[in-house]
Structures are given as C-alpha cells and as structure tokens.
C-alpha cells in the first residue's frame, strides 16, 4: 500500500475507508462456535434428562446437566484463544461478551437451586435466553439468530403449558431452533466469507 499523498481520488479514499471498516468488523462471525457447542450440550442434556426420567429408574437424572462444566471450560479456553488471536477489540465485541457473561450469571441461581423448583428450569431459562440471543442477532445483523431469540421466547411460554417431563422435549427443540440452526447458518456464512 502506497503512503504518498494526492495520488488517489476522493472516491478512492471513501472506498478505502469503507473496505477497512468492513475488515475490522469481521470476527464477530466466529460466534458460531459457541452456539454450536452450547446447542449440542443443552440439546443432549434435555434429551438425556427426558430419556432417563421416562425410561429408567436412575435416581439422579439431573446429573446430565454436568455436561455444562466441560462446555464452560471449552468456552473459556476458546474465548481466551480467540481474544489473543483477534489482535483488536471492538466495542461491539465487548458488549456482546459482557451480555453473555451477564446472562450466565442471571441463569446461574436457577441452575444451582433447580431442586427447589422441582428441576423445572426450562421455562424460565428459555425466556431469559431469548434476550441475549435476539440481541446478538441484532449486533451481527443476522436474521436467523433474531428469529432464534424469538423462538426461545415462544418455546419458553409453551413450556409453561406442557407437563414437566415434556418441558425437556420442548427445551431440546427450542435449542435446535434457537442455537443450532442459526449457529450452523452463521458458520456457513463465515466459511463463504473466508
């Protein structure tokens, strides 16, 4: 790239500004990893809980939620590696990260004290999950994720209307629609952009 002045037109200057700004915004698409990871973890936990309750006498079916621990560890390792690799920090990256950390803290009491509410955490968690999912969709300007956020809200309400056991099935479908489908679409979009 040349450093000399006056050898390019105002239109070329504007084009250059636009290209550089677009390049700086690229890495938010890496978010697909988290949606796919957590999508599968929560989907398996929901189906595991349903299967264990319905078909076995296993006394601790909620133990399947321990799958969240390795998912958290992977999230933290991947997140810190990505942060180091990115070479830049944008305000939107920061907002997005803190929004999901706040979300994690807001659902934590429901997970810790799930026994006190009969392990029926799905309705509350799904409704709360709709907020950061929808907002990440807005930040990324990615409609499937916005729809995913809306679907979490709808499935959360549906959970209040079905039996506690069927809530796990609704939870599994909700995660499929809210995280996995948008997550894979986001991943495809990123691969096409690379």
């Amino acid at each position, binding site marked *: 790239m040349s*450093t000399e002045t006056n050898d390019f037109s105002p239109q070329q200057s504007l084009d250059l*500004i636009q290209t550089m700004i677009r390049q700086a915004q690229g890495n938010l698409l890496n978010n697909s990893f988290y949606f796919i990871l957590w999508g599968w973890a929560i989907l398996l936990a929901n189906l595991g809980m349903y299967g264990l309750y319905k078909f076995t006498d296993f006394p601790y079916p909620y133990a399947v939620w321990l799958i969240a621990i390795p998912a958290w560890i992977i999230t933290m390792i991947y997140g810190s590696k990505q942060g180091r690799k990115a*070479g830049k920090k944008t305000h939107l990256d920061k907002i997005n990260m803190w929004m999901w950390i706040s979300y994690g803290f807001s659902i934590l009491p429901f997970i810790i004290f799930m026994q006190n509410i009969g392990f029926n955490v799905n309705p509350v968690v799904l409704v709360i999950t709709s907020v950061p999912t929808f907002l990440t969709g807005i930040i990324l300007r990615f409609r499937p994720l916005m729809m995913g956020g809306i679907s979490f809200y709808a499935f959360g309400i549906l959970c209040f209307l079905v039996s506690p056991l069927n809530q796990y099935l609704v939870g599994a479908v909700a995660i499929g629609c809210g995280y996995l489908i948008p997550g894979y679409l986001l991943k495809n979009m990123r691969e096409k952009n690379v």
Partner: protein
Amino acid sequence: MFKELDPLLHSQLRLAIMSLLMSVDSAEFTFIKEQTGATAGNLSVQIDKLSEAGYIEVTKSFKGKKPLTTCAVTKKGLSAFENYVNALKQYINK
C-alpha cells in the same frame, strides 16, 4: 469554497490505519499490518507520524515475552477523521 483535505490523512496507508482504528477500540500492530498489507517498517513510520500528530495513541507492552504495540484513535484523531470525511463529501458531491 472546498475544504482542503488533511494531508496527514490523505495518504493511502495512513487513511487505512485510521479507518481500521475508527471501528475498533484498539488494534495490535500485527493486526493492522495484516489488514493493510503494509511492510512493518513502512507501517511503523506512518504510525509514528499519526502518533506525533496526536491522532492516535500508541501503547507498548508485552504479551508473554513478546513486545506488543497497540494503537487507538484519540479524540483529536476522531475529529480530524470526521473533518476529512466531510471534506471528501464536498469533493464527491460537487
């Protein structure tokens, strides 16, 4: 009467650096190098010019054992960039 284009910004590499920094909070030297495709030496010189003008703030630290140079736009840089874009608009709309 057309505004004059700021000569410090009306240079491809310096404008590219400023445009990159406008859309981030801060960026590492290696990131700017990758995105602009400039050589380390040339980039270093242009960053120094922008820094001397007070348009960007350069912070030197360490990432592990490796030196790390991070750049961020200052308020002065932000307003210079806005003026430059406004001046550009005048030229394009004439």
